[in-house]
């Protein structure tokens, strides 16, 4: 039986030869991401900024202007209204009042909005995050990303050599930076589930990188005299078929989620899809070429071949 091979056997693509182009491109993208982040900032959701979010659904298409007028009359401060998935559904965001210490303001705001919407809307979801909780979520969120990256650094160091761990972590930082960059550029809602997506991307991208590195290590033992750039290139080519296959299966599952999984997790799946693309790219074009720059120990005679 003839099987589908997305990547032909025995490829010899010169990934390492083009490393300057790839690395410059990535460097530009990372700097651009940081720039966009500094210029636009992230569109933080209520998880991180505090405030109230109400999802409501009407029988007929919603006139956003009219609804804006009705809610504006309640004097709730900054209110954002947007369509959510369908034209009958809306997402209402009410900003945190200045100087609030608990969620009491938001609670009364919700009560008033509920009252106003009661006659023609079904309130499907209410989320209120008080300032104390949002501050903690920012803190734990940052800590989690740092902890995730640090634990990868240590694990790879432990299993490989320090050059590998630095290379892998730089690739991770690259992925995280580009993900934050796209969220800053498109001003997509950045909430707790996006943070979860970033951590999953960290895991996924690391997974990809480790597979390539594993082959690099194996080849370092096998070809003791081979030029490092050629050796790295062989490792990438040998694992290329697997890298592409896994990205495709993961992408298939993610696309199903993105298209059919509903509006609530669309942001999450978008981040994941982006992360899989970036993570796959960085494992091939960034993580391995970085080993060239960092220089790798060539004498592996003391270590065992498994």
């Amino acid at each position, binding site marked *: 039986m003839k099987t589908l091979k997305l990547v032909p*056997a025995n490829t010899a693509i010169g990934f390492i030869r083009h490393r300057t182009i790839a690395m410059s491109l990535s460097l530009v993208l990372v700097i651009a991401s940081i720039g966009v982040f500094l210029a636009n900032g992230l569109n933080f959701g209520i998880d991180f900024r505090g405030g109230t979010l109400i999802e409501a659904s009407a029988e007929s298409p919603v006139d956003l202007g009219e609804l804006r007028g009705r809610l504006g009359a309640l004097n709730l401060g900054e209110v954002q209204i947007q369509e959510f998935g369908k034209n009958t559904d809306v997402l209402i965001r009410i900003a945190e009042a200045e100087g609030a210490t608990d969620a009491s303001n938001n609670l009364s705001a919700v009560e008033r909005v509920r009252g106003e919407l009661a006659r023609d809307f079904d309130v499907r979801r209410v989320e209120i*995050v008080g300032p104390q909780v949002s501050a903690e979520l920012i803190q734990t969120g940052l800590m989690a990303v740092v902890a995730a990256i640090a634990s990868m650094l240590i694990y790879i160091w432990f299993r490989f050599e320090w050059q590998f761990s630095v290379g892998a972590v730089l690739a991770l930082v690259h992925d995280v930076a580009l993900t934050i960059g796209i969220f800053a550029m498109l001003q997509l809602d950045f909430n707790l*589930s996006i943070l979860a997506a970033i951590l999953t991307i960290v895991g996924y991208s690391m997974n990809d990188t480790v597979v390539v590195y594993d*082959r690099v290590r194996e080849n370092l033992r096998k070809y003791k005299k081979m030029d490092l750039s050629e050796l790295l290139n062989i490792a990438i080519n040998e694992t290329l078929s*697997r890298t592409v296959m896994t990205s495709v299966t993961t992408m298939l599952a993610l696309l*199903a989620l993105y298209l059919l*999984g*509903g509006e*609530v997790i669309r942001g999450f799946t978008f981040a994941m899809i982006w992360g899989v693309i970036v993570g796959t790219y960085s494992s091939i074009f960034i993580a391995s070429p970085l080993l060239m720059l960092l220089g790798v120990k060539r004498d592996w005679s003391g270590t065992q071949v498994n």
Partner: protein
Amino acid sequence: MLHFSKFKITGIALLMLVGVMFALPNFMREETRLSLPDFVPSGTLNLGLDLQGGSHLLLSVDTDSVQRERLEDLTSDIRLALRGERIGYSGLSRIDNGVSVTIRDAADMEKAATVLQDLAQPVSGGVLTSFEQRADLDVENTQGQTFVLRATPDAIAARNTRTVQQSIEIIRRRVDELGTTEPTIQRQGEKRILVQVPGLDDPERLKALLGQTAKMNFHLVDQTINGYDVVGGKRPPAGSRLVYTDTEPEVPYVIRRRAIVSGERLVDASVGFDQQTNAPEVNFRFDTLGGRKFGEVTQANIGRPFAIVLDDKVISAPIIQSAILGGSGRITGNFSVQEANDLAILLRAGALPAPMSILEERTVGPGLGADSVAAGRIALIVGFFAVIGFMVVSYSLFGLFANVALIANLLLIMAVLSGLQATLTLPGIAGIVLTVGMAVDANVLIFERIREELALDKAPIIAIDMGYSRALSTIFDANVTTFLAAIILFQLGSGPIRGFAITLAIGIVTSVFTAFVLTRLFVALWLRRQGKPEALPL
């Protein structure tokens, strides 16, 4: 790598059987499930609040108020103790988290030290592991003749724990009155309480019930001064203070500080209706002691008003028509039936030991939850078929093996989630869909490796063997990293995110097992039947 002993095969089969048994209840109808014998697992996946609808509230208990009360009590204890021993003192005052007092006469210092030290009591209800009983007060002669008394950290911690535990008890009573099924009420961190109530149709009412301290006291109204005069700037007489009604506009009342009877003496409360006006009212009953006290005071004050004060707001201030001797009474106010009902609930459940505030709320309506379940299910089915189709196209028979392993994997995830009674959330479903995509990775690694070995002109059996053994360390390293990410995610997460981390972590373990052990078994069994194949369907 390809040799499986009978023993091993039986082990794998048994494990799968247990997996199927734990997963099976999810596919049964409710009645069938309940009629299962006890030794068969019958738990199903626990749907998170985002899937079944419900309210998640994070409350913060103002434990500081209890500590403040304790310091106030301590201040009067010190006063009584020093007076009792006739020790002169001055400057008895509360300082930041303690009480300070200066002894007048240096000769009294030693006695004062003993008296003050005697106020300390062992910490009750503290940590069980420490056998050494610690004192709840730290008495320190800071300078000259001044003593500073502070609550010890142990005492503060024990008191906070007690306050939070009492609060949880009261919250449980209040929530139970709403008649919802299986609310979760648990302490989180030092002074927070997480309340999760599934399938609630009126979350606003829940919040209204939880937001009130419900401290009810009965006070006499001080008639020597008009409330509006005090608002205008006059000082209320000593022993009296100003409170307002909860109505709009507020009406000021001056009440005696000392309560006639406190709400703690209430034993029951229920809704009733006024016989003439048919307006809703709340009937209550005191315990014996409270009833007697209430009777005495009302008897002595016929014709005068008294105030029923709830959380420092006057809810009713009737004139005492006659002595109320039976130990029961009624509160009439401008209640709606629901308001009267809620007040009765609050009075029955008792007052919270400290005020609470709501820090976070996440409420999902049942409609959205059902939509999410439906969407998640469709995404899972479509993603699943896309992946298995792709695997067969790419690896033919071996792809089929991987697909059987994938199905086994989903069953095992379901089994573990049901067995652990873990909660399945919408991000959790996303985690499973993602696992479907990533689970085949281990097999992809192995199959690609086998292809490589075949390309080196190795015999099929050797190639398979090498493929499995060489891929093992890669699979291990690659999955440990994702697993680490899942653990950190779990630590970080609240509710839904935790659900994602759990399914991701379980998915990693089950997918490595199914990919590495189960497909290897299939391949080995297939090879046994084939003898020595010339080429592999790969």
